[in-house]
C-alpha cells in the first residue's frame, strides 16, 4: 500500500511564484520536481529524534514586505544587530523576500557578486544553475525536497579567483506574519579567494506556528578560504531546519561557527565534504537548550581527499526539560590516505530533567588515517565552583562563569565583534530565564 503525503505547500502557489518572478525554465521545473520528490520521500532519519511529531506543516504563504532603508525600519530585535547604520555589505529578508540588498563598493570593484538569490537568478542564471542544490541533494529527504520547491529570497555570494575580501558579508533573515521562510544561501569562492559570511536568523512581528527551512551551500575552490558564521534565534513556535553543506576542493578550507540559540525545536546539520587533497574544515557549534525544546544537532566531515583534515566541536548547555541529540560524524572514505579528523561533543546539564546525548560516530574505510573523538555529558563541576567561591565570587556568579566559559571557545570565534557580543547576550538571556 502506498501512502500519499499531503504537502504543506500548494503546487499552484509554487508554480505561480516561479511565474511572477519570471524565473528561468529550469528553476520552475526544479521547484515542481522538488514538490514531487517531497510527496514521495520520507522525512530524514534522525538519531533518537522523532520529528514526525513536530510541527512540520506551517510553511505559511508568500507575502512581500515593504523595502527597508534605515535601521529604524526593522523590528526592535533586529535593530540591536546594527549600530546607527547598516553594514557595508548586507542583505535583509523579511517575510518572503529581500527588502534590502547592498554590496560594498569595494567588493563590487573586486568583481564580487553579492545579491539576493532571486536577483542572481535573473542576472547570473548560468552561475546559479551550476551550483544550486549541488551540495545538498534535492532528493535527499522530504525536507530538502520541500526547500527546493519553496525557497525564497536568499543570498548569492560569488568571489572571483584570487580575490580576498576582508570585510564580512552579512545577512539577516526575519521570519514574520506567517510568510514562507526558506532562504537559500549559495556561496562560491573561486580558487585562492577568501571571504567571510555572517548571518542572523530571527523572528519579527506576528510569528506564530512557523517552519523555517533553510539551506546553505558553500563551494570552496582550490586554495580558497571561506568562513561562515550563523546565529539562529527563533522563538518557541518556530520549527527550524538548517542544512549547511560545504564542498571543499584541494587545499581549500571552510570554517563554520554556529550559534543555535533557538527556543523551539530545531534540526541542524552542518557538513563538510572534503573532496580535495589537503582540504580542511573546522566546525564549531554551541547551543543552549531551554524549556521543552528538542534539538538534533549534527556536525559531519566526509573525507575523500588525501591528507584532508577536519575539526568539529559541539558544546551544549541544557536547562529545564530540553533535549539535545548531538551527533558528530567523521567519515573517511577509501583512498583518503593521511586524513585526520578530530571531533568533540560536550554537554553541560543544568537540570535533572534535561537530556543531552553525545554520539561520536567514526566511519573509517582507510587504514592510513588519524581520527579522534571525545564526548562528555556532565554537570557543573563542584570543585570548580568551590575554587571560584573561595575567591569571594558568589555561587551564582561562579556557576555563570563556568557555564559561559564552557561556551567561550566557540563564542570567541565569531568573526564580527558586534555579533560576538550579541551571541554572548543571547547566551546570557537564554541562561538567565
Amino acid at each position, binding site marked *: 500500500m502506498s501512502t500519499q503525503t499531503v504537502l504543506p505547500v500548494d503546487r499552484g502557489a509554487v508554480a505561480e511564484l516561479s511565474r511572477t518572478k519570471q524565473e528561468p525554465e529550469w528553476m520552475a521545473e526544479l521547484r515542481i520536481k522538488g514538490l514531487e520528490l517531497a510527496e514521495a520521500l520520507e522525512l530524514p532519519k534522525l538519531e533518537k529524534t522523532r520529528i514526525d511529531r513536530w510541527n512540520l506543516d506551517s510553511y505559511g504563504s508568500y507575502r512581500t514586505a515593504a523595502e527597508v532603508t534605515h535601521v529604524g525600519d526593522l523590528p526592535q530585535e533586529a535593530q540591536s544587530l546594527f549600530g546607527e547604520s547598516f553594514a557595508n555589505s548586507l542583505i535583509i529578508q523579511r517575510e518572503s523576500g529581500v527588502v534590502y540588498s547592498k554590496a560594498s563598493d569595494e567588493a563590487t570593484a573586486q568583481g564580487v557578486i553579492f545579491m539576493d538569490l532571486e536577483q542572481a537568478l535573473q542576472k547570473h542564471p548560468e552561475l546559479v544553475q551550476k551550483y544550486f542544490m549541488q551540495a545538498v541533494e534535492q532528493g535527499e529527504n522530504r525536507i530538502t525536497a520541500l526547500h527546493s520547491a519553496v525557497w525564497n529570497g536568499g543570498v548569492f555570494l560569488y568571489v572571483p579567483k584570487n580575490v580576498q575580501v576582508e570585510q564580512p558579508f552579512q545577512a539577516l533573515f526575519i521570519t514574520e506574519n506567517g510568510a514562507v521562510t526558506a532562504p537559500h544561501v549559495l556561496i562560491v569562492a573561486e580558487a585562492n579567494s577568501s571571504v567571510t559570511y555572517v548571518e542572523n536568523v530571527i523572528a519579527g512581528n506576528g510569528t506564530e506556528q512557523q517552519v523555517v527551512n533553510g539551506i546553505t551551500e558553500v563551494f570552496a575552490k582550490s586554495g580558497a578560504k571561506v568562513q561562515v558564521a550563523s546565529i539562529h534565534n527563533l522563538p518557541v513556535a518556530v520549527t527550524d531546519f538548517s542544512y549547511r553543506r560545504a564542498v571543499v576542493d584541494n587545499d581549500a578550507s571552510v570554517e563554520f561557527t554556529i550559534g543555535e540559540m533557538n527556543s523551539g525545536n530545531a534540526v541542524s546539520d552542518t557538513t563538510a565534504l572534503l573532496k580535495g587533497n589537503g582540504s580542511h574544515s573546522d566546525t564549531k557549534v554551541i547551543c543552549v537548550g531551554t524549556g521543552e525544546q528538542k534539538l538534533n544537532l549534527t556536525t559531519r566531515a566526509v573525507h575523500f581527499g588525501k591528507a584532508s583534515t577536519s575539526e568539529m566541536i559541539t558544546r551544549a548547555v541544557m536547562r529545564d526539560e530540553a533535549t539535545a541529540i548531538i551527533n558528530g560524524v567523521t567519515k573517511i572514505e577509501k583512498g583518503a590516505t593521511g586524513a585526520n579528523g578530530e571531533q568533540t561533543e560536550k554537554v553541560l546539564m543544568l537540570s535533572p530533567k534535561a537530556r543531552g546525548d553525545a554520539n561520536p560516530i567514526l566511519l573509517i574505510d582507510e587504514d592510513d588515517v588519524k581520527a579522534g573523538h571525545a564526548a562528555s555529558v556532565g554537570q557543573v563541576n563542584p570543585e570548580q565552583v568551590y575554587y571560584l567561591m*573561595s575567591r569571594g*565570587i*558568589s555561587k551564582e556568579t561562579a556557576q555563570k562563569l563556568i557555564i559561559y*566559559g564552557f561556551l*567561550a571557545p566557540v563564542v570567541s570565534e565569531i568573526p564580527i565583534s558586534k555579533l560576538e557580543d550579541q551571541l554572548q547576550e543571547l547566551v546570557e538571556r537564554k541562561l538567565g530565564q
Partner: protein
Amino acid sequence: MSNAPVFSINGLKATIEGKEILKGLSLEMKGGEIHAIMGPNGTGKSTLASTLMGHPKYEVTEGTVTLDGADVLEMSVDERALAGLFLAMQYPSEITGVTNADFLRSAINARRGEGNEISLIKFIRQMEGKMKELEMNTEFAHRYLNEGFSGGEKKRNEILQMMLLDPRIVILDEIDSGLDIDALRIVANGVNAMRSPDRGFLIITHYQRLLNYITPDYVHVMMQGRIVKSGGPELAERLENEGYDWVKEELGIVDETVGQGV
C-alpha cells in the same frame, strides 16, 4: 587604628564521608604572625586547610572557628573569602573558557561590591605589576584559568591572587610542593612582601625548606588530626635534622596518621 585580625580555631573536628580526620584541633593566630603547620603525610594538614575554607566534602562535627569573633563555620565559602580568608590551594582547579584576567577581576569586584567596580585600566596596571613581581609572563592573564599551567605556574598564580585580593588570613597549603628552587624563592618573596600587622599567615608544609625563606613565628606539629607540639622556628630546624620520630617517641604515638587510607 589597628586592623589586626584574630583568627581562632577551637576543638575543631571534621569528617569526610563519615570518617573523622580532624580530631579536636585548636590554634589561635593574630595579624602580623606567621604560623607553620608541619607534619608527616596523612595527618590531616590539607583537611584542615579545606575545612577552614569550607570545602563541601568536609563536614564539621564539633568545635568553632572565628575571625574577629565572627562565626566562620556559619559562612558560605564566598562569605569566608569576603571576610578576609584566603586559601592558596595545593591543587587549584582548571577552568576552560574563563581567562585568568576575567576571573581575577570578578574576584576583586566581588569584594568591592556593585557600583564600585575597579576600572579596567587600574585593574590591568595592578595585575601586571604583581605579575612582574612574581616573574610571570603577562600572557598568563589571557590564558584560561590554570588550564595547561605547569605545577609551578599554578602556584605562582595562587600567590598572584593572594596579592591582588589583599586577604587578612592567608592559608598556604603545600605551596612549596612541585616548585624548583627559583620558583620557591619567588613565591617566598611574594609572601614576605605581604607580611603586615594586618595579616596573619598559616603555612602548611611537609618540608622545612620553605621556612628557610619565610621565617615563621610559631611552628606546630600535626599528628592524628590535631596539633601535638608547638614551638618557635627552632622546632622546624630540629624536625628537618631529626625527622618526626622523636616527637612520636616523646608523645608515645605509634601511628601518626588519622587512620588507614588517608
